[in-house]
Structures are given as C-alpha cells and as structure tokens.
C-alpha cells in the first residue's frame, strides 16, 4: 500500500455536476493526490474502474451493529465487512445495544472496535435517555466530547414517549450542538402491531400499525423542534402523511431533516401476503400510495437521506410465528443496487441526486468533515471512495452476505448496480467486489 493506489478509468461523480468523463484517481498517503487522465501507475496498485462510477464513500446514518450485547446477530467486525462491501466509508450505529450506548465508555468501546477493524468508520449515535428508558437524559455532553465524538442522539427502536423529556432533550441537545434523531411513534396506537394497518392487515388478521401512529410522533417532534430550535432528524419516515409534515416544516424554516429506508421505497404491504417475516419491520411496509409519496419526497428534496436501518437478526428470530418474529431487515449490502434499480433506472432520481442522498446529504447533517470525510473526489481530499458499476446485474444471494445475518426480503431479486471497490483512508479495503484481506469470517 505504501506505493499508492491508482483507480483507473472510472467516471467521477460530483455534487453538483454529475458524471464526468473517464478519469484516473491517484491515491497516496491516504489522500487523493491526482485526478486526471492518463496517469501512470508507476509502482501504485491499480484498481480497474472501467465502466464504473467513482464517488465519495457512502455514509449510513442508521444501522444496528448489535455490539455490545447481541453479537450473535452482528458485531462491529461483521457489520464493518458488510458496510465496506456495500461501499460505505462510515456507518452510524444506533445505541440500542446491551448495555446501551448511553455513556462515553460504551461509545468509545464501539468506536474503538470500528478502528480495530479498519474497514470503515464506525460512529455511534448516543442514547437520548439513560438505558433508552425514556426517563432521564443520557450525558450528551460527555459522549460528544469523548473519542467517539457522538453528535447524533436517538432512542431508536422506541420513541421518547414523554413529550416533556423530549422537549428538554432537544433544548439540551441544542446547547451541545447535537442532533436529535427521532424514532417517531405514538406507542399507544401501535401497541401489538405487526404490519401496516389497512386492507392487508385486515385480510391477514394481523394487528395493524396505523400511519397515524408515526405521523403523531413526527408532528410532535416537529413542534418541539420549532419551539426549541434544536436540529431534528426524523428516522425512517414511511408514510405519505409524514412526508407532508416534513415538507411543511421545511417550508416554515424549521431545522428538520429526514431519511427514508431502502425497503420503504422498494416494497409495500402487499408483500406481507405470504406472512414472510423478512417483510416485518418497524415502521412497517406501508401502502403503495405511501411508497409513491416517499418517491415524491425524494424527488422534491423533502427527504434528505437514504438509509437502510440495517437490523440484523439470527435465523431463529425470523423463522417463527409472524407475531413472534423480530422487527427489522439487513440492508448494507443491497442498498446501492436497490437505489440504482428502483430510483435511477426507474427514472425517479438522477444518479447524482440518488448518490448524494448516500454521501453529500448525510455528510452535511452529521458534519463529516470533522472525521476527515469530504463528499467530493478531488485532489487533496481524504481518499474515501466507492467504485461501483451501475450496469452490472446480479442476483441477491443472502448466503453471500458478509453480515452475520440473512434477514433480507430481497433474496433472489435480480438487481443492477454493484460495488466493485471501496477505498477507506487510502486503502483498498474491497477489491473486485470482495474484501481485499479475504472474506472468511474468523471461526466460520
């Protein structure tokens, strides 16, 4: 690696600007040192990028890496491998671990585990409340100034049900310069719910989760953000009503951003007809009307970020009765392909607009420059790159995942768009679609 790396013959994607012509990118000492044509590799390793797009590495704003406490589902090592193969340079992981990431020690532990793996940045979000119990504030200040530099706070998996506590959390977060990430859900409406409430829940006899349960939460937190002036990010918005609320809030100048997950724009609640537990997540897959509204939200910029809400589970937690199965699906290794197939190829977003939701937008919201990440492939920038071929067709095979988990609804899907290489801090961590250092999980 000491001789550098030449990413040869790809087309660089810039925001704004779109795709450039065939270009070589030379990486030396962790930085991009030259961007141009006909660069001679010299002694540098060459990564063939012909036919590929060269873009800044992706940023996942919302993943569950399960460490500490639930390593049987996933850990920072397996999650990092999955992320690197998915083209990510940074993964923000949610604090609903055991123990929760609600203090600096656990935050630093998770952060350090990511550094140990060295495949991507693993950046913990901190809990809003101690133990995610929704009762007393977690030490945001200490988590923010510790080695892990926690900037986003969330009780994801659960809402902060008590509005007074949420109000104070936002006020405190504002002072700390932190971002509050809301899992918006009015639990009294969604209790016991298994899927979106509507015709299909009625036919299937499954308890419904009404869209209003999410929208009441979204509306409350927008009100509180307006009152407190705190920066608010709404996790996994899934309904037409939520998109409308965010659109109106942005129009009023409230500092709110939001994300949509890949599954919420790729799938709808008709997919539940076979009681497939890999279609079970929270918020649930919504109606086709909601999916249309989410796509509109992406098109008009109401939705800032595409996330995966990567939620690994062990097979036995999914191979069970529907109402006993865990909520959640994995997503790190399928995100790019779904974005290309369902958004770019389908004509919803340009490649530039779509990839910006995975790079420039989360980088802005999470202030990634402090981590040496720039959402630009240019000379002098730290070399965090993804090289993907937008035309490569492949079939999703869950057995080939680097994640420890297999709970995907996309098994067998024919998709387009494949990550070929990932460069992290100047190192080629994924080459030709596989981990450079070998892919076998130790002990497996």
């Amino acid at each position, binding site marked *: 690696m000491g001789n550098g790396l030449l990413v040869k013959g790809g087309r660089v994607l810039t925001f704004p600007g779109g795709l450039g012509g065939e270009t070589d990118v030379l990486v030396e000492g962790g930085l991009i040192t030259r961007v141009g044509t006909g660069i001679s590799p010299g002694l540098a390793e060459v990564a063939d990028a012909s036919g590929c797009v060269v873009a800044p590495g992706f940023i996942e704003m919302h993943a569950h890496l399960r460490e500490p406490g639930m390593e049987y589902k996933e850990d920072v090592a397996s999650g990092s491998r999955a992320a690197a193969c998915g083209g990510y340079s940074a993964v923000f992981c949610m604090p609903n671990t055991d123990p929760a990431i609600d203090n600096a020690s656990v935050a630093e532990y998770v952060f350090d585990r990511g550094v140990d793996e060295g495949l991507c940045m693993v950046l913990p979000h901190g809990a809003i409340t101690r133990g995610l119990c929704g009762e007393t504030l977690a030490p945001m200040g200490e988590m923010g100034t510790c080695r892990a530099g926690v900037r986003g706070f969330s009780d994801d998996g659960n809402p902060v049900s008590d509005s007074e506590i949420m109000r104070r959390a936002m006020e405190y977060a504002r002072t700390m310069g932190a971002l509050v990430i809301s899992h918006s859900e009015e639990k009294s409406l969604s209790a016991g719910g298994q899927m979106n*409430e*509507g*015709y299909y*829940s*009625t*036919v*299937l*006899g*499954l*308890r*419904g989760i*009404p869209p209003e349960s999410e929208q009441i939460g979204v509306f409350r937190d927008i009100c509180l953000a307006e009152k407190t002036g705190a920066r608010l990010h709404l996790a996994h918005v899934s309904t037409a009503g939520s998109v409308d609320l965010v659109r109106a809030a942005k129009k009023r100048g409230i500092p709110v951003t939001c994300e949509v997950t890949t599954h919420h724009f790729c799938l709808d609640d008709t997919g539940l007809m*076979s*009681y497939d537990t890999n279609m079970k997540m929270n918020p649930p897959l919504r109606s086709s009307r909601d999916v249309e509204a989410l796509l509109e939200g992406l098109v008009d910029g109401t939705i800032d970020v595409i996330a995966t809400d990567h939620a690994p589970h062990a097979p*036995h937690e999914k*191979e*069970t*009765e*529907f*109402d*006993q199965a865990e909520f959640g699906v994995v997503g790190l290794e399928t995100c790019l392909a779904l974005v290309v197939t369902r958004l770019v190829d389908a004509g919803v977003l340009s490649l530039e607009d779509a990839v910006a939701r995975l790079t420039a937008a989360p980088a802005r919201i999470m202030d990634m420059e402090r981590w040496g990440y720039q959402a630009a492939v240019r000379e002098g920038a730290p070399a965090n790159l993804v090289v993907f071929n937008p035309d490569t067709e492949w079939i999703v095979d869950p057995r080939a995942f680097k994640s420890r988990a297999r709970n995907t609804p996309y098994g067998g899907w024919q998709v387009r768009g494949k990550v070929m290489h990932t460069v992290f801090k100047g190192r080629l961590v994924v080459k030709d679609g596989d981990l450079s250092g070998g892919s076998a999980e130790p002990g497996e």
Partner: protein
Amino acid sequence: MVVDANSHRHLLSIAELRREDILGLLDSARSFAEVSTRPVKKVPALRGRTIVNLFLEPSTRTRMSFELAAKRLSADVMNFSSSTSSLSKGESLKDTAKTIVAMGVDAVVIRHSSAGAPLMLTGWVDCSVVNAGDGMHEHPTQALLDLFTMREELGRLEGLKVAIVGDIDHSRVARSNINALNKVGAEVLLVAPRSLLPEKIESMGARTTGSIDEALEWCDVLYLLRIQMERVDESRFPSLREYTLQYGLTQTRWSRLKRKPLVMHPGPMNRGVEIASGVADEVETVITGQVAAGVAVRMAVLYDLLGGSHG
C-alpha cells in the same frame, strides 16, 4: 385446496378455495353426515393414516370435532396441547412440528394464536396441514360447517342474506365466513360499532351497519359472534350491558320480528350478552346442528386431503 411442491394438499384458508371446492366439500360432508347417524359410526377411508391435532390455543369443540372426524374415518389420532409440551420448554414451533412429523404423520391439524402459523408450517413439514383457526386470520372449517348448516336449513346459499354481528375485528370466524359467503354468492352485512370493525373490511366484500335492527329486518341468517369482556378493557365498547342494549339479540328484538331469521352462533355462547337466554333456547337446535355439521365437514376435509384419488 393448496397443493405444495411435494404434492401435499393443505386447507389453510377459505380465501384460497374456489367456489367449486367449497360446494364439493359441502356435498361430500353430506354423505359423511350419514355415517354419524349409523350405530357403528366408522368408515375405513383413512385406515392406516395418522393425524396429529396440534392445538396450541385452548379449544374444546374444534379439537374434539377434528378428533371424532379422524376417528370416524379410521385414522390414528394423536393430540398435542401446548401446556404439557416441549413448546412450554421453549422449543420453537418449527422444531416441535418437525419432530412430530418425523414420527410419520400424514396431516397436522393446527390451532394457533398467531395468524399465518399454518401457512408457515407447510414450509417446515412434509405432510398435509389443516388450519383449525389461526389468530384473527381464518377458521376455514368453521365457515364450511356454517355454510353446510345454512344450506341444510334454508336449502340454498346463493342470494342468501347473512348478517354477522359482533367483534368482527378479532374474529377469524367472520373473516372465513365473509370469504366463503362471497364465493358462493351470498350477501354479507357486518353489524358492529366501528370500533369492532377492522380497517377496509368492506373491501373484503361486505357491507357494514351500526344497527342490528336494520340487519334483523334484512337478513335470512343472523350470525352472532361471541363477545369478550377484555374488549371492554381495550375500549372497544363501554360495557357488556351497553353491548347487549345496542347489539344483543334481546327477547324484545326477537319477539317483535315477524319474519324470523335463522340464528347461528359458533359457540361458546354468552347467554344474556349477545343472545338472550330465552332466544338461545328457542334456536338451540340450529346451534347444536352446527356442532354436528362440524364433524361431517371435517371428515370431508380430511378425506379430501388424505384420501381418495389425490393420493
């Protein structure tokens, strides 16, 4: 009937049946009903076949009905209930079912509190599966026995006006009956406060009303569902007293009807709640007739899945 890749036939829902399937099963049930009137109530149709009743939710009448149906077809029957089983030791449904079926079982009759459990089971075990009620989803043999009773009592199904009264939201019986009645050309009216009706239920093929009096004037069949006290705690309606006043088949309502509909109930009845005790006595023969029909219909179903030309 659903046939899987291994040629096993399953009965998982009414939704998957065609009109001809339903009518065929009802015709077949009629000949099996005759068996139960004989002094020796047994035919050798399923001799050597083994059926397991996997009842993971409390049930008396459905389990006994399936057991009798299997025995009258000369099948061997094993009963399994959750409280005394490996499931209470934490074994998964998948492992429990695979273990049982590994002993050489031709059909599993499953009752489960989770919607979709019978369908999942078909992916795990190498035998036929019969849904004996799954959560709030379906209870196909109940709907078949209800249709059987309606046809026996009224001579037809097509064009029949059926009002179903009560807790539609939680009722697998209602869902199966809505599906079945639609397929055979009957009309369905659901009678309940909106708080007991699931979202978009009209799209399943039913009208709705909040007035039992409207329904009583209209219907040929009045199908009463059991109402449960815990729905009061869920704020679905204020009290049993209020429910009876608004939706109960009270003596007053019954007496003033000139044209009396056929009254049916899947049991067990709450006398004094959804039906006045005096009315229940008056219509009891139909309701016990439903129970008798249950055995015949389940014989027809088991025979269809395991016997005959299908192999």
